């Protein structure tokens, strides 16, 4: 405590007392000089104060501005990505049309075209329509940590739908293929490497009379049902007569090749 006591007892620089003791008695004009000095010092102090405060106030909106700028840039990049995706889908359609017209001339070509159609349907290279069910899942209303959907929940939901006999599934417009990953990145769920925002709309094409019941019995369906009843996660399942599941336009094998002669 002696440190604090010392601090309280001698708040003044010792220099003042020493200077007062050693100073000759008779310099009266020093008083004006003292005043000038005090004014100069307070001037500097005021200047420093003002600069520090204004700096503090200026840097706050600066950070906010940078944040806004980043958000705009992210949105722009997102828009660019979606226009490029659309263009890519158009081009893929055109390629497919040209391919079909080229193949339809010969009988062996027509057989090949038929095989191609089946494969494209199954791999998710073209958009498909058909009856099915639409599941909309969302975080709990007070989205604290427990009521938030995770990537594993979405995986379970989708697996449940596959088990229930779905033939084609899309999540928020992203077609699921054999190469689509559903993963968590930070606090967002990514499907096919684009992050999604809740609610998550899952389209599943299949027999819409049996799928809801089979889904409810599947382990994935039970997983989601458990979340609904215990963590207030919201889910609505509706049967639809016609659903559109878009193509995964980017599906391509880059390394895998057919082994040996067919």
């Amino acid at each position, binding site marked *: 405590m002696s440190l*604090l006591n010392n*601090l*309280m007892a001698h*708040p*003044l*620089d010792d*220099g*003042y*007392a020493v*200077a*007062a003791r050693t*100073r000759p008695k008779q310099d009266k004009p*020093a008083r004006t*000089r*003292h*005043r000038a*000095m*005090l*004014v*100069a*010092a*307070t*001037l*500097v*102090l*005021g*200047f*420093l*104060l*003002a*600069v*520090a405060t*204004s*700096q503090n106030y200026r840097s706050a909106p600066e950070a906010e501005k940078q944040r806004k700028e980043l958000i705009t840039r992210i949105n722009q990049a997102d828009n660019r990505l979606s226009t490029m995706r659309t263009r890519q889908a158009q081009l893929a359609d055109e390629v497919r049309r040209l391919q079909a017209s080229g193949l339809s001339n010969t009988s062996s070509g027509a057989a090949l075209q038929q095989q191609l159609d089946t494969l494209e349907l199954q791999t998710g290279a073209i958009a498909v329509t058909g009856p099915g069910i639409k599941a909309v899942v969302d975080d709990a209303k007070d989205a604290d940590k427990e009521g938030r959907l995770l990537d594993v929940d979405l995986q379970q939901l989708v697996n449940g739908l596959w088990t229930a006999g779905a033939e084609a599934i899309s999540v928020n417009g992203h077609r699921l293929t054999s190469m689509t990953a559903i993963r968590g990145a930070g606090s967002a769920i990514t499907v096919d490497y684009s992050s999604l925002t809740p609610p998550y709309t899952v389209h599943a094409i299949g027999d819409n009379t049996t799928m809801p019941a089979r889904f409810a019995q599947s382990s994935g369906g039970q997983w989601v049902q458990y979340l609904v009843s215990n963590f207030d996660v919201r889910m609505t399942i509706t049967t639809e007569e016609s659903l559109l599941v878009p193509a995964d336009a980017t599906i391509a094998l880059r390394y895998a090749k057919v082994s040996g002669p067919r």
Partner: protein
Amino acid sequence: MIAVLGLVIGVVIGLLVAPDVPDWAQPYLPIAVVAALDAVFGALRAFLDGIFDDKVFVVSFISNVLIAALIVYLGDQLGVGSQLSTGVVVVLGIRIFTNMAAIRRHVFRA
């Protein structure tokens, strides 16, 4: 009264000029301000005690500011910058309060 005038003029100049503080100086500016405040309050008290000395004042003002900035700089290099800033602010704060109490006794006789 004249000291307050100087303070006001300084604030006005600072607001009008509003110079850009370079990035490296930003953590030291608030500490420097507190150190300067301490020196000024010490001077004010000495002035009222009748032992004010301009040389002591100028030296204490400059050395206060420099040492405070130096301590924070050292702390930054050692990775304890924020803790040392707190320490400097506490010590200077206590000094300012004690000096203010003496000034108050002089001015209000209470």
